[in-house]
């Protein structure tokens, strides 16, 4: 959700504001038009996504700081994927890839707050799990934009605001049958802070004071400010976990739950229990040269944000542990597949902070993936490169369902009937400023094949009509410091040809 990293133009602002509220356009706790028929005896699936969680910053994957000690422990009971790649580098394409099992150049949710192509309204993970009771929740409005498209295949779409600290429940109560539009209008009328202006000239000010008063008691627990999704939409991750943990047992089984929490996404507001944990550890990350697309952040700034982010991860780690404990205590773990992953990563290097960048280096696209199989007590490590698009076919396979032909991913090892293909090509796409229904002419794409990764930038003004191509050997150089494109010409040419051929193929429908 890059709105926090750069100013939005008016249109984006309004769209976000709208979405914030259109996330209520829901068959809330009622039955959706395409309501599921849960098959008795099936296994549950709980897909938990923590937004902008980079594998690079996770102690489980070798990060210097102990950012996720609980996850390290839980991994002893999981299948741990070490080279898992997101579909894109920000929420919209990354999440859409998870939910549709296709890459951004196919689902077309490539722009900020974008939506998937209409054909995916019936080609998504919720539709595929129609034999399950399907529930979804997200703090992130960009995710809700996508979920809103899939409401027909959701049995419960929990309103975003339900897990905010100061919610305006009376609007939902008063306008029950028109909750979505009433909430949009209420937000536009009274919430001045979200966009800087509101319909109300006087009451908006009083309302702000009232909201601040409501969250005042929580402020001492968050020295850097309360976690929020922008404006005064404050939330606590522990509250979300408590609610989810408390509700899980009550859902009809088998269920498919998609829960997308905003932390550790910016703003990095950790709990006071973790505040300052890494501030004086003296650790200095590997210094990397400024990128052509550098945001010109100083080393000092990047170090500060990195510390804030890393300390926020501790908070995420503790809360995921609590969720896991809920599942275990309730006995649900015995019959539930739990997935821990993210939609994209985050970076604090090369003069870039965050993930709103054309750059697709590892910290921003390599994400954690852990699969907790029901009843599993041992660890298994998978080093084969895998992709977010593999999640959909894998979850369908392990729950004994049919894999649709439109899914672009493959079943992950060790669940696939055959060994992983060492020559498989994995792609990540960044085309935020490319027109949705047009050939990709301004984008960054990567291809990962075996140990090599090629980055291909094209169409950016900064490139002045040229292309930028880089090649890295991820085994020898996981920090991506030595561009081998000239040194390993043959490998580079082969990967580039393959990537270009793929681009030509995906561009065909839009020519």
């Amino acid at each position: 959700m890059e709105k926090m990293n750069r100013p939005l133009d008016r249109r984006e602002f309004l769209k976000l504001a709208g979405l914030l509220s259109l996330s209520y356009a829901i068959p809330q706790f009622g039955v959706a038009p395409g309501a599921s028929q849960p098959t008795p005896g099936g296994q549950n699936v709980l897909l938990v996504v923590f937004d902008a969680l980079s594998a690079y910053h996770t102690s489980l994957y070798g990060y210097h700081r102990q950012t996720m000690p609980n996850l390290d422990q839980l991994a002893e009971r999981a299948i741990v994927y070490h080279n898992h790649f997101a579909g894109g580098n920000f929420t919209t394409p990354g999440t859409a890839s998870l939910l549709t099992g296709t890459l951004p150049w196919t689902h077309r949710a490539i722009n900020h707050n974008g939506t998937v192509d209409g054909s995916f309204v019936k080609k998504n993970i919720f539709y595929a799990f129609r034999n399950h009771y399907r529930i979804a929740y997200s703090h992130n409005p960009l995710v809700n934009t996508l979920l809103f498209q899939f409401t027909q295949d959701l049995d419960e779409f929990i309103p975003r605001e339900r897990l905010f600290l100061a919610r305006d429940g009376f609007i939902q109560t008063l306008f029950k049958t028109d909750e979505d539009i009433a909430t949009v209008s209420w937000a536009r009328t009274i919430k001045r802070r979200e966009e800087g202006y509101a319909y109300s000239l006087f009451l908006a000010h009083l309302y702000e004071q009232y909201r601040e008063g409501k969250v005042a008691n929580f402020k001492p627990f968050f020295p850097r400010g309360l976690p929020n999704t922008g404006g005064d939409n404050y939330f606590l991750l522990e509250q979300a976990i408590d609610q989810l943990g408390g509700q899980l047992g009550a859902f009809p089984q088998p269920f498919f739950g998609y829960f997308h929490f905003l932390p550790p996404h910016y703003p990095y507001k950790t709990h006071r229990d973790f505040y300052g944990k890494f501030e004086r550890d003296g650790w200095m990350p590997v210094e990397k040269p400024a990128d052509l697309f550098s945001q010109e952040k100083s080393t000092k700034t990047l170090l500060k944000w990195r510390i804030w982010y890393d300390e926020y991860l501790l908070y995420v780690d503790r809360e995921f542990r609590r969720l896991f404990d809920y599942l275990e205590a309730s006995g649900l773990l015995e019959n539930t597949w739990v997935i821990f992953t993210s939609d994209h990563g985050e970076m604090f290097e090369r003069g870039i902070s965050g993930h709103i960048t054309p750059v697709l280096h590892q910290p921003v696209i390599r994400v954690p993936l852990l699969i907790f199989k029901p009843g599993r007590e041992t660890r298994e490590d998978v080093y084969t490169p895998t992709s977010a698009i593999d999640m959909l076919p894998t979850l369908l396979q392990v729950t004994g369902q049919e894999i649709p032909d439109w899914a672009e991913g493959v079943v992950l090892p060790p669940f696939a009937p055959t060994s992983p293909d060492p020559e498989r090509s994995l792609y990540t796409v960044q085309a935020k400023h490319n027109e949705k229904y047009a050939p990709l002419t301004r984008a960054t794409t990567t291809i990962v094949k075996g140990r090599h990764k090629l980055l291909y930038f094209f169409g950016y003004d900064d490139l002045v009509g040229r292309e930028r191509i880089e090649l890295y050997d991820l085994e020898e150089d996981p920090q991506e410091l030595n561009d081998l494109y000239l040194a390993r010409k043959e490998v580079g040419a082969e990967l580039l040809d393959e990537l270009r051929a793929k681009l030509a193929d995906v561009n065909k429908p839009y020519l």
Partner: protein
Amino acid sequence: MCAFPLHVWTIILALRDFSWVTERTNAWDAIGVISYGMVFALIESLVVFLAAVLLGFLVSRQWDEGRRIALLSVLVLITALWAMTSQLYFLWGVSLPEQMMRFLAQSEHPVRVLYATGLALVLPTVLIPAFLVLKSNKVFHFVRELTERLSLLTMFYLVLDAGGLVIVVVRNL
């Protein structure tokens, strides 16, 4: 007079929002957003009216009723204008002039200076018209005529409010 600025502002912003709501859902929902906005504007107008009435009890009775009403109307209008101005930064990207920003940055107490400057700017815009309404017949008559004309316009807004209310009710059936 309480209803006028609130409704104008709501209508301007709601019409700006119409296109994206239509784009995202449909025109009926966009009309719904405007309708709720009108209903909320009506409620806010009533609240402001009540506040103005209460304030009216504090105004000395040495002035006749017409003048007191004119005074309160002017106060509501000016306050509303300043409330609109405060939102222009986000609407039009209007910011303080560069020199002013530099001066604030260099001053030892930028917040205090900002508030003092704000007060120095706002106070005369409130006090001078208030004084003129009470002391000048010409200004008083002007305000009274303005109030009467705007009241007519307000009737039109009330019709819109009623329409909005009907739409809100229909949407919630």
